[in-house]
């Protein structure tokens, strides 16, 4: 608190306004008094509407199934940012925070979910002003004629300012080689990362092999994206946990037979050559959503429908993979 020797106690905002007007306090002191007044009150113009606490966000992260290594890394990043900020406060040498990232992993392995949580965490830590996530892919960035691409890319960057620009299947930007407009998108992006380095985080996401190839062909990018996180496929057990959680959230339950059938289908799918493209948790979600619709269809023709009927998903409700 500033060294203010006020003879009276501040009771309301109007009082502070008067003190400025009659020349008792400076604007800076006024702001400090407002803050002090504010801390005593529940609702006030100074407090954001609904701010989540960082512990709550980390709890949400912990609540995600699997992702052990990812969780560890996110905590590391959070701690690192916190310490750099404290060092800055103490005027110790602090590294400038470069938080652009590469996410490697198959579809449905939690990349977007984790990116969204990171946005919230960084907002809390005041690294990002808004912390929102803007998800884009090649088509949102690459245009049809010279100059169009730069324009489209800059537009997406503007949408993402203050938050995270999440580029899915980013390797496809290097697909067409030197002459392709994807190259222009990358260059524009790199420029934007310089221009807005204080308020934009870019995450490039995609399959592991493809992303590694992408980084090899664009060696300049590696140093601009110092954080790399690998998302491994979920195990069958984890996928079943995810399925249970999904149905519970919707107030359904799986019968033991349904669970067995689900396990069987997931195991079979793993043998499929295209498993990496089938979508892990996304595959589970599709199976569950389909099952809910099939259960409804089964029940609608039934004469009497009990509460139990409404809750349980039976094995016959679970579709085979090729039906999805």
């Amino acid at each position, binding site marked *: 608190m500033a060294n203010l020797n006020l003879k009276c106690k501040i009771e309301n905002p109007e009082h502070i306004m008067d003190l400025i*007007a009659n020349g008792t306090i400076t604007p800076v002191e006024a*702001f400090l008094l407002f*803050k002090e007044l504010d801390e005593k009150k529940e609702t006030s*113009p100074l407090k954001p509407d609904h701010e989540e606490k960082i512990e709550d966000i980390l709890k949400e992260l912990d609540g995600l199934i699997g992702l052990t290594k990812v969780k560890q890394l996110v905590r590391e990043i959070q701690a690192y940012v916190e310490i750099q900020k404290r060092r800055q406060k103490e005027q110790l040498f602090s590294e400038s925070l470069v938080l652009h990232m590469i996410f490697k992993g198959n579809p449905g392995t939690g990349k977007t979910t984790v990116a969204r949580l990171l946005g919230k965490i960084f907002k809390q830590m005041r690294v990002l002003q808004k912390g929102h996530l803007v998800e884009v892919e090649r088509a949102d960035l690459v245009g049809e004629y010279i100059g169009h691409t730069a324009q489209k890319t800059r537009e997406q960057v503007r949408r993402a300012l203050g938050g995270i620009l999440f580029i899915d299947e980013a390797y496809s930007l290097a697909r067409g080689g030197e002459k392709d407009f994807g190259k222009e998108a990358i260059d524009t992006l790199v420029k934007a990362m310089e221009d807005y380095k204080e308020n934009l985080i870019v995450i490039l996401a995609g399959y592991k092999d493809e992303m590694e190839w992408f980084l090899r062909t664009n060696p300049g990018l590696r140093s601009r994206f110092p954080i790399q996180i690998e998302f491994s496929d979920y195990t069958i057990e984890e996928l079943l946990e995810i399925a249970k959680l999904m149905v519970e959230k919707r107030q359904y339950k799986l019968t033991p037979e349904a669970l067995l059938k689900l396990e069987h289908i997931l195991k079979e799918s793993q043998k499929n050559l295209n498993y990496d493209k089938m979508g892990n948790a996304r595959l589970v979600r599709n199976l569950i959503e389909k099952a809910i619709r099939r259960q409804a269809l089964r029940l609608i023709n039934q004469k009497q429908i009990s509460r139990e009927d409404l809750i349980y998903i039976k094995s016959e409700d679970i579709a085979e993979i090729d039906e999805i």
Partner: protein
Amino acid sequence: MGKTTFLINFAEYLGAKTIEFEFAFPDGTKFKKKYPCKSAISDLVDENSHKTLALQGATLEIPVGKGKKKIQVIDTTGLIDGIHEDPKVRRSISQTIYEVLNSQMIIHIIDGSAVTKEDLPSSPSEVDFQISQIARLKKGYVILVNKMDLPGAEEGLKIIEEKFHGNVIIPVCAINKKGFKEVKTFVAYNL
């Protein structure tokens, strides 16, 4: 800093031919007046500081998606670090602070060319830092580093980016409307 210049030219940039200001003075006087954008500049902008001593509200139309949205923008008196000797200025400062606390979005204008010259009245100071602390809790908060056409502004911008790390910062020139597109996008996305 160029607050008034920015508001008038931004209105013009958004397609307005005229701009209607509603003046609200600290003593309670209120009136409305319509200006063509050009004469608004000559009437309301001055190189001496504390030209603006009323809250000057104007309604702007901003394109959002396919449609348009009306926003109420208020030009204010500049805030200073110390206690101003003129009671009229002090009262205007007081009502400006009230608006800062109660607005949904803050467009905070800093004179980029004055950053390295610490003795000018428009040099950024502790009060700017306090504003940023409060404003970053709002729905939208953006710092415009103005007068990018003047020498020293690039260096000023760098210093502001360091000092106000973590906020959205857009370099602009209120006179030649440079950077206005970014401002428009920022405002539209934060409504």
